[in-house]
């Protein structure tokens, strides 16, 4: 295996570069997945039937907490990758741990939000609007949940094996995934919540 020392560790082998490009191609497919969910949501958001409208069930406070928590976690994992490039393993692991804690807070608030919807009578079966809403939010939430486990295993592996071309590559790819979840959230925040409360 040829290691190119002029590149950051996560890019240092040919295989690593291919892994990163491959993950970007996966993210391209994820863009289309969330695109179809938005398509469904925009089509169905007015079909509320006998159920509540978006403005009646959306609460700004939990949405703001989720938004700022996820934005900050995207920043901290970026700092984690920067620390990794400096070879500062402990700083990197701390930033990754902070990121996952913020992710956990996000998930907790989202679970609260889903319980709130249940209590005000907006369940999966209530109307086309609530079904499209909960599917879109749920798909994003499931991605965050998966990310929490993935990130935990990344931390454990870096702790055990140290920073090698392989672990650095895996960490970098995980950071791409996490940033992507924040990008999706920006669109959910803007075009589901803010648009619904406007």
């Amino acid at each position, binding site marked *: 295996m040829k290691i190119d020392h002029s590149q950051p560790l996560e890019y240092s082998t040919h295989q690593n570069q291919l892994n990163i490009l491959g993950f970007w191609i996966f993210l391209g497919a994820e*863009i289309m997945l969330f695109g179809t969910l938005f398509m469904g949501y925009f089509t169905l958001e007015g079909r509320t039937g006998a159920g509540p409208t978006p403005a009646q069930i959306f609460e700004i406070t939990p949405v703001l907490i989720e938004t*700022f928590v996820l934005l900050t976690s995207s*920043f901290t994992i970026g700092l984690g990758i920067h620390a990794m490039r400096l070879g500062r393993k402990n700083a990197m692991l701390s930033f990754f741990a902070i990121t996952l804690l913020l992710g956990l807070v996000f998930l907790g608030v989202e679970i609260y939000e889903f319980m709130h919807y249940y209590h005000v009578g907006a369940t999966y079966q209530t109307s086309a609007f609530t079904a499209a809403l909960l599917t879109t939010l749920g798909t994003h939430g499931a991605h965050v949940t998966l990310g929490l486990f993935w990130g935990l295993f990344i931390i454990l592996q870096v702790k055990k094996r140290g920073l090698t071309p392989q672990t650095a590559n895996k960490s970098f790819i995980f950071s791409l995934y996490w*940033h992507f979840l924040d990008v999706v959230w920006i669109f959910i925040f803007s075009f589901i919540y*803010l648009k619904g409360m406007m």
Partner: protein
Amino acid sequence: MKELFPAKQVMGFVASLVLTLIALLVVFTDMSYTAGMTILLVTAFIQATLQLVVFMHAGETEDGWAIYSNILFGIVIVVLSVLGTLLILLWDM
């Protein structure tokens, strides 16, 4: 400690906070639907680009062109299908 907080990323974070606050104006001030949607479209796409370039390091390596064209492909497909859906199912054109 200072080298752990690169200026580029701190600025990116501050910019994303500011853009979020601008987007919030849509809810907390009285404005028309068109004005609100314009603000949301602008702030959301700038924020997404910010994440891509500042945090995800797209375009830093030799295969940056492949990364950007792949993402652009995804965005084009999504924009076409979302606009097409709106056009046929909601705007009755």
